[in-house]
């Protein structure tokens, strides 16, 4: 989980969060492009996880790192399930919050990886 990977994921997740926020302000329902954005964030996270598993170089506590990683991975699907249950602007608001959380957790993952747990 190098800084480049972490910041790239954080930037991408933040962009998807802004996109979701835009949906929310406009009162749009959960759309296909938004779904692809969330799915792409999830793919990036999986790739980063596989990379972390095989490349190595973790300076921090592995238990802490992987428990944070699993939590980060669960947030997006949970937000989609909880978000599409409400077909109003608030449903996409949930997705915006979730993507911001993923962005923050991505930075946290990097800090743990560097040993600043």
């Amino acid at each position, binding site marked *: 989980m190098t800084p480049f990977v972490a910041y790239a994921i954080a930037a991408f997740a933040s962009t998807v969060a802004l996109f979701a926020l835009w949906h929310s302000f406009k009162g749009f329902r959960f759309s296909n492009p938004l779904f692809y954005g969330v799915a792409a964030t999830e793919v990036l996270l999986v790739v980063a996880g596989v990379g972390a598993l095989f490349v190595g170089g973790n300076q921090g*506590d592995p*238990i*802490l790192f992987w*428990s944070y990683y699993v*939590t980060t991975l669960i*947030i997006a699907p*949970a*937000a989609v399930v*909880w*978000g599409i*249950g*409400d077909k*109003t602007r*608030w*449903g996409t*608001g*949930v997705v915006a*919050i*979730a993507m911001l*959380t993923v962005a*923050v957790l991505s930075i946290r993952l990097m800090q743990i990886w560097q040993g600043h747990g």
Partner: protein
Amino acid sequence: MAETQAGFGRVLVAIYAVFAISATARSLYQLLSKFDVAPVAYGLSALSGVVYIVATWALATDRRPMAWIAVGFEAAGVLIIGLVTMVNPDLLGDETVWSRFGAGYGYVPLVLPFLGLAWLVKTGRTRASASLNEPEAI
């Protein structure tokens, strides 16, 4: 359908769920790996995590009295521990969710309970007036 299943309540539940998971998981890790360093701080974090879980569950299932107690507890906790750690930063030994009014978590722990209380007041009022104005379903 419970009111927390719709509108802003849905966002509120989502944020509470995030804090329920993160505060509980982090404090469990701290309690298991370094309990001796700051037992009071980690114990407090664990307590706040459990109350976040109760608040999330109560809000999501529209159990209002329990939601009032849990969210009110969070509000009191962040104000008291926030004040204490401002006056004496080293008292608890390590950071908690509530330390320095939740600064370590972007002040979300400070804003969230009051958002929750405001929402409980607002939806409580509309529900009370709705039940007065609308006759029972026939």
